[in-house]
């Protein structure tokens, strides 16, 4: 119990004194996971909407693959991305192993199925005739898709938040493809694991608290946007 108390005290101290290393780690966490979430937002919402609106044999199979992808273990993603990015691996020429770039890649792979799956469900949940109604208002295909996405903004943003939550909190892939290099590829989660491994529990708890604070802030912002344009 006193360990948690020590952790809280340490967290407040680190924040108030603007400890440079902690600031660095926090900013990197935000940058890496934020970029990965952004990528998954674009890919996921486009793919999800196309999948929801299209009709083709094998659609159900594809949707279940996406849904399976939502539960993809991050560690597995990390392992596969590492093997691909190894110097002697197929994508070794990119030379991005052990860089934040690789972390963004792995996290985007983790987050995209989540955003896609929730997008498919959200669009499919809209009234069946809504698509026809929008077309009947004279919308082109593009206008129709954009209006549908706006209509489903509530669950879609929830999907983005789920994607962000999934990657800001993951550690397995980030350690493997990032290498937890001090000042370069070390983020809040990987630093927490390292400090725990070293037995520095108060530091680990402090970092965890800062991570949760970060999560809350971002999600608060996204929730504000999600609820914003709904008229009272």
């Amino acid at each position, binding site marked *: 119990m006193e360990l948690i108390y020590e952790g809280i005290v340490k967290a407040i101290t680190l924040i108030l004194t603007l400890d440079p290393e902690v600031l660095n780690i926090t900013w990197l966490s935000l940058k890496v996971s934020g970029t990965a979430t*952004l990528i998954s937002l674009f890919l996921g919402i486009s793919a999800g909407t196309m999948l929801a609106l299209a009709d083709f044999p094998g659609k159900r199979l594809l949707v279940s693959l996406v849904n399976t992808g939502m539960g993809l273990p991050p560690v597995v993603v990390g392992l596969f991305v590492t093997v691909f990015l190894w110097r002697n691996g197929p994508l070794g020429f990119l030379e991005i192993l052990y860089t934040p770039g690789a972390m963004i890649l792995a996290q985007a792979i983790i987050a995209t199925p989540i955003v896609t799956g929730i997008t498919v469900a959200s669009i499919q949940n809209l009234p069946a005739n809504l698509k026809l109604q929008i077309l009947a208002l004279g919308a082109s295909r593009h206008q129709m898709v954009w209006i549908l996405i706006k209509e489903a903004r509530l669950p879609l943003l929830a999907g983005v938040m789920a994607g962000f939550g999934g990657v800001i909190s993951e550690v397995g892939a980030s350690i493997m493809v990032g290498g937890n290099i001090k000042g370069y590829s070390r983020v809040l989660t990987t630093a927490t694991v390292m400090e725990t491994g070293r037995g520095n529990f108060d530091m680990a708890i402090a970092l965890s608290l800062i991570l949760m604070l970060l999560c809350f802030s971002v999600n608060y912002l996204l929730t504000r946007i999600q609820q914003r344009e709904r008229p009272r």
Partner: protein
Amino acid sequence: MLFLTIFAGTTVPVAAAPKALILATTTSTQDSGLLDVLIPIFEKESGYFVKTIAVGSGQAMAMGKKGEADVLLVHSPDDEKKFMAEGFGSARRLVMHNDFVILGPASDPAKIRSAKTSAETVKRISKAGALFLSRGDNSGTHAKEKKLWKSAGIDPEGQKWYQQTGLGMGETLNVAAEKKGYTLADRGTYLTLKKRLGLEILVERDSSLLNVYHVIEVNPAKWPKVNRAGAKAFADFMVSKKAQGIIGRFGVDKFGSALFFPDAGKKPESLGM
């Protein structure tokens, strides 16, 4: 939206830093904090960007065998010798040593405090069936521990009192402290955590408890993509007077004694190996 895209752009280009070098080393080496002092100095002098990947000795050497690391800093001599014999390394040089200690609860149920040798120690632990925590992760520490059991002619595998954590050194120490069991640890990690642990050093300074570090340059003949110049620069640095001096002074202000002993250039026999 725009802001997000801009800052995303600033993250990615750090992909191929100027002259990057991959150093595979062990968690205990990194956890000691020694590298946090040495690496920045090396980077400043040489202009290389060192990516320190801290994993277990086993994984570090596996990376070396696959050419996914340029230089190794490890402490598992038997495996290292095999590594070199199989041609995976082009050069192997002695850097420093520290020692392992056998830790346990103050109550010392297996009465190992009075043991004269480490072989005697492990025999007593086995006979008493006293709880022993092993890292069980093919790390340098684990390799050393296995050697101790072997030389005493004991096979602890599968015994109820022998538990493998699969965790890092710091965590294993915490488990041992929590469960009041015995364990083998490097002195450096122990000193760092000593205050909170409640474990005591019960056996030390036996020659078999010596923990020797070598720097190995991965053989570029096997893997052309290896940064051979960088590896050599790093290895040269580690055995240089400057680095050796830093090694010898590291930890004195914090713990009262040095955590490591510089050995560059010495013959292995002089260390009693």
